[in-house]
């Protein structure tokens, strides 16, 4: 092996090493989204009662999502002043609230076809692009934003036709907090209680 070959080989090796984790992360993110989507589809088409579905969605959030990270983005500035206990209580309440709020509309998603299209690198991890086709409407784009949590991929935001779940819920939760004069504990209790 001459010098040039050696350099070329080590160069390629270094490149493969550099590209390796990124490609692996993309593949992991894609697997996560595929698994989550399969779980969601199975639940929606199972014919279960709404209440049973809400439980399924909570489990899906827990298993595939980084609820704490999403909760922080949803809460925004007040998060900094919250105790760790409040943060965990809020993250848990958010999970319940989101499962019910979006779970309530599950009928619209019955028979939906969800296809993973591709992935791209973003600042905080990987964005998995999916195409969702509901009955009787043109397919639309849903992005799953996935980040790495201790070596495990977890989704932390969903973006539908440009509308981010976290950004939108931040506006909503902000309004709810204003209506409760900034009382985080009251907000947490109400998020859990809202049917």
């Amino acid at each position, binding site marked *: 092996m001459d010098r040039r070959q050696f350099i070329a080989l080590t160069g390629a090796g270094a490149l493969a090493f550099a590209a390796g984790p990124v490609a692996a992360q993309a593949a992991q993110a894609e697997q996560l989204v595929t698994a989550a989507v399969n779980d969601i589809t199975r639940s929606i088409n199972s014919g279960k009662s709404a209440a049973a579905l809400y439980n399924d969605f909570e489990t899906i959030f827990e298993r595939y999502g980084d609820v*704490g*990270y999403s*909760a*922080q*983005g*949803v809460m*925004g*500035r007040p*998060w900094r002043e919250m*105790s*760790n206990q409040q*943060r*965990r209580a809020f*993250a848990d309440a958010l999970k319940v609230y989101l499962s019910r*709020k979006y779970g309530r*509309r599950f009928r*619209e998603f019955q028979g939906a076809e969800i296809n993973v299209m591709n992935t791209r690198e973003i600042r*905080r991890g990987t964005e998995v692009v999916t195409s969702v086709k509901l009955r009787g409407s*043109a397919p639309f784009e849903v992005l799953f934003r996935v980040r790495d949590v201790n070596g495990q991929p977890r989704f932390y935001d969903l973006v539908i*036709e*440009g*509308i*981010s779940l*976290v*950004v*939108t819920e*931040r*506006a*909503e939760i*902000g*309004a*709810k907090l*204003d*209506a409760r004069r900034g009382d985080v504990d009251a907000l947490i209790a109400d998020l859990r209680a809202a049917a």
Partner: protein
Amino acid sequence: MTLRLTKVLIVLCAGVLGACTTPDTPVEVFDPYEKTNRKVHNFNVGLDRALLRPTSTAYGVVVPRPVRTGVSNFANNIDTPRFMLNDLAQGNIVDAGHNFMRFLVNTTLGVGGIFDPATSFGLETRRTGFGETLHVWGTEEGAYIELPVFGPSNERDAIGTVVDFISNPLSATIDASDDWIPPTANVMDRLGDRYDFADTIDSLFDDSEDSYISARILYIQNRRFELGGNGGNAEFDPFAEFDDDPFAEFDEE
């Protein structure tokens, strides 16, 4: 001379378009007219409750779906020459050709636009308007505005909406006695949309804590998405102010 022209442009921009200002932080929305906007919003909510919701329900229940689809196709076809004109103004020859062919196919094979055979030939609808043209020309979205009847908008797109409303080239070619047809088709199309998306719209008005804020954040995000590349704006980043680990600071372990 050039400097003067620039000054005039800046004044024009600030005064007429009013759309050269940008928000301070990427998470906040730019809404200096919130007080007025909220009044308009209350009016719109009232209008929806009193008129739109019941009328659209009646329309949806009484008129069968195939007929509603026909009305919607017809309204879209009437608008297509306007899309084409804006495509040209944007320098988008591909879309202009696409919309030209679409109009041709649907006006003839689609019996005056009642049917939409063009979509099955790969000529799906590609909507655009003067708001997008202004965007392509470099106008920023400006402040958020809620328009009466038309709903959420911004300074740039409000101008777009007005221009769209009066600039359908088709109006120039039809008889004055038929002038009522395009706006009527559009209103009926809107009623059909209100019926088809009733659950979504009702839940926005009824379930959100503050429907003004919800409508605003939904509109801004979706409009930027429609324009591509986030409409030239910095992306909202709800995580910018935080660390990687949401519980790090207070973790007991």
